């Protein structure tokens, strides 16, 4: 048997193979720290590039006029598509979440959960293809509405999951109190439980919006053929939007185009970053309030 003895009275510096093991452990720690710093670094580099290049393209003209000077129509179009998508996704998502937490047990509930999880991981281009086959094939033209439907499909799992999480945090005595008052389940949900969870529901919706605003692939298939020089509000035609504009400009090889793309990217990124950060802060605050 190999020797495990040591001199207890020896100084407390590494003995045996400890020096080597210590060095390796320290090496691993540096590696992990370096990895984390690298990730933050990449984030910084990308954001920095967007800000630096994009800021030079920004101007009031850029924000309000149409092509070739600006992306005004795209801003409006994106807002409209995302808004319609939210109007579709949010109510359905909340209803599904309410069903899962308040009423659902058994097979239907687990099927729904599975479907939601799968929807969450679906590549957005597949969603685009699906809605294409569904709507555009039938109507023979692109539309902002079709794009909104695709975004809604992407947003639905996010809203549903976040709502479920918040609803689970609602203390059960609230539900019991409502039941004890002889109020029907649906009434208590609408009147008591949802209002108390409204903060969390709102933030999940905002997170979903932040995700959807940046989705390009479905828009490319469903709302990419438009006239970028004028504002269009008709959702039954293709609406101008920011993500496809950036993509289009990046595929062309013109420097002015690139500048505009940076500018559009700057606007988009700013919006997404602010909403993401804001939503997360709100979510954390709602969670801690709920836990009290």
């Amino acid at each position, binding site marked *: 048997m190999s020797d495990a*003895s040591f001199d207890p009275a020896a100084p407390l*510096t590494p003995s045996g193979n400890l020096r080597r093991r210590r060095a390796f452990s320290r090496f691993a720690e540096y590696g992990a720290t370096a990895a984390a710093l690298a990730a933050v670094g990449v984030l910084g580099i990308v954001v920095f590039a967007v800000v630096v290049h994009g800021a030079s393209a920004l101007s009031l003209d850029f924000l309000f006029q149409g092509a070739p000077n600006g992306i005004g129509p795209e801003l409006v179009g994106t807002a409209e598509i995302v808004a319609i998508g939210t109007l579709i996704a949010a109510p359905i998502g909340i209803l599904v979440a309410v069903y899962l937490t308040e009423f659902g047990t058994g097979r239907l509930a687990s099927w729904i959960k599975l479907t939601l999880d799968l929807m969450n991981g679906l590549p957005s281009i597949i969603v685009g293809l699906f809605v294409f086959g569904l709507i555009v094939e039938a109507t023979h033209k692109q539309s902002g509405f079709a794009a909104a439907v695709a975004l809604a499909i992407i947003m639905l799992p996010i809203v549903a999951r976040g709502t479920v999480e918040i609803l689970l945090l609602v203390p059960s005595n609230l539900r019991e109190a409502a039941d004890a008052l002889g109020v029907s389940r649906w009434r208590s949900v609408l009147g008591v439980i949802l209002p108390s969870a409204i903060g969390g529901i709102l933030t999940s919706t905002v997170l979903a919006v932040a995700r959807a605003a940046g989705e390009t692939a479905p828009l490319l298939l469903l709302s990419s053929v438009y006239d970028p020089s004028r504002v269009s509000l008709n959702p039954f035609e293709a609406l101008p939007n920011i993500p496809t504009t950036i993509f289009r400009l990046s595929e062309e090889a013109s420097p002015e185009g690139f500048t505009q793309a940076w500018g559009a990217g700057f606007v988009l990124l700013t919006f997404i970053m602010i909403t993401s950060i804001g939503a997360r802060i709100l979510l954390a605050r709602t969670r801690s309030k709920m836990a009290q």
Partner: protein
Amino acid sequence: MSNFDSREFSQAVAATPHRVRIQTGPLSDAGPSGGKLWEGPIEAVFDAQGVSVFYGSKQALHGVNLRIERSRITALIGPSGCGKSTFLRSLNRMNDPVPGFRLEGQVLYHGHDLYASNVDEVEVRRRIGMVFQKPNPFPKSIYDNVAWAPRNLGLKHGLDERVEKALRGAALWDEVKDRLKDSALGLSGGQQQRLCIARAIAIEPDVLLLDEPASALDPIATASIEDLMHSLKGRFTIVIVTHNMQQAARVADRTAFFGLEATAGEPSGTLIECADTETIFSDPADPRTRDYVTGRFG
């Protein structure tokens, strides 16, 4: 006592690890326990001097002076919240990761300052093992639980024998020898705790620290742990924190009583008294000790 080479004699005494009861002076001087004890050089494994422990601004311990002797079982008793576990964990630097932890005073281990800047705390923990209140076996097989630390240390040869020896030493071998590859999480609470003890002794540490090892176990498992203490006694220096006074009385050679004492401000834990177990329980010097051991409180 003429022609007695007292120097030779005292060297002989110091050379043996056993405490010797020596009659010094006339018999009429003898105290109630029949003779003064030789307070000579019994080796101190730990020597805590003026130890105070802070967690941030909260003080957990103040002014602890305590010697832990070699190859003895020393029990730390006292009511909850008096810093017994804090003190114990300070002996193997397990308090280091706790946020805000600060130690004042000195803890000497074989004469070396445990908190000196050049001390490697991993080395400290290799020499001073610990068993925790709640059994915490790894999610691995029984064999791998015991073999894990020796493998880290590079003790690859004779691993089977080492594992067997450790499991025997923890009085667990017979119960598990046919299922060494089974998951350790399938053992009962008492068995898991003995496995943790086996794990600790597998690397042959100098000291074993036990933080209320039986408090999470049923009475039968507790009894098996106590029997274990006796068999481990000569091989390791043992310090055990326990709430159970009867356990301390049964098992320990020396007992230290910790209590709360107010210094300037909030009360914090401190060592009230430390003596032979017999003395602590039959004729303690401090009235607070007497109150505690006679059950007047706590």
